[in-house]
């Protein structure tokens, strides 16, 4: 497993495609907490996969004014189709070219498989990583850690 960037580290900025003609930068979201959820791939074959779960939990994240971003190495058209199929209400970012570059900068790239780890980062309003976690690739980490980290930001 990779070693994710640890709490207290400045979150590396990035600018990735979120739709075929639109990019999103981490710095655009300064001023509010951001949840970065790296996940291995779109279209995992289970009910309530990690992104579907977060989609369902979105109102809980929004109570903390937090923005959720999903990131994988899938291309933007793949993300678009996946988001439409699963009715996702948050952005999916394509870490596609150079492949996995953002994941690598966060210590969240699974080199042997050429995919991102299941890595979670909670970044505060000033762009500092406050919590990070890498789950075994086959285990959907759920959202309990994210919610605890968001609550800790408010203390």
């Amino acid at each position, binding site marked *: 497993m990779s070693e994710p960037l640890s709490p207290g580290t400045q979150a590396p900025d990035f600018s990735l495609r979120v739709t075929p003609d639109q990019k999103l930068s981490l710095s655009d979201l300064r001023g509010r907490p951001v949840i970065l959820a790296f996940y291995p791939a779109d279209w995992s074959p*289970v*009910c*309530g*996969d*990690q992104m*579907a*779960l977060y*989609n*369902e*939990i979105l109102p*809980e994240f929004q109570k903390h004014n937090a923005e959720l971003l999903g990131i994988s190495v899938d291309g933007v058209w793949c993300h678009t189709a996946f988001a439409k199929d*699963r*009715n*996702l*209400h948050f952005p999916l970012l394509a870490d596609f070219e150079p492949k996995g570059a953002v994941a690598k900068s966060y210590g969240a790239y699974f080199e042997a498989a050429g995919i991102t780890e299941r890595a979670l980062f909670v970044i505060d309003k000033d762009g500092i990583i406050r919590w990070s976690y890498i789950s*075994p690739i086959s*285990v*959907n*980490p*759920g*959202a*309990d*850690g994210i*919610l605890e980290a968001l609550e800790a930001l408010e203390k």
Partner: protein
Amino acid sequence: MSTLKIQVGSEDHVQGNAKAACTLVEYGDYQCSNCGEAHPLVKEIQAQFGKQLRFVFRNFPLTKIHAEAQAAAEVAEFAGSLGKFWEMHNLLLENQKNLGQELYATLAGTLQLSADDLQSALANKTFADRVRADFTGGVRSGVNGTPTFFINGLRYDNPMDYASMVQAIEKALAA
């Protein structure tokens, strides 16, 4: 390691020996095919462990991908308020391909519950808060899809087959 944050209490739907050494909690969704598949598996596990095991079911409807999940959960809670939770739970899972108003009315009839009362409970969202409370409690506990099982409070992350689950429960009983 994710752990159950909401302890099993008087609000829960519990099957089996209240003093069992092992508690199996399932967070499930009546429209989820994996939950449908887990249903006979849970029954086999209950048969295997008898008085050593109690089983708890909590709602975790994935409403964005399953259009009937919320209503079905409310139907089960409606039946539960009249002492027939498990009967309805079984019927919903056994008929999960046909979830919808027509089925709910039929099932109410099967269990000799008033279809009109059920209709108004759904229309008034009488049990929506209860279902939502299960859901948010599940989120806090690290529920990561459906079904998610907890064995004596620890999330079960291994394969959902009979042999693996029996092994995990035996380990919990031996602990």
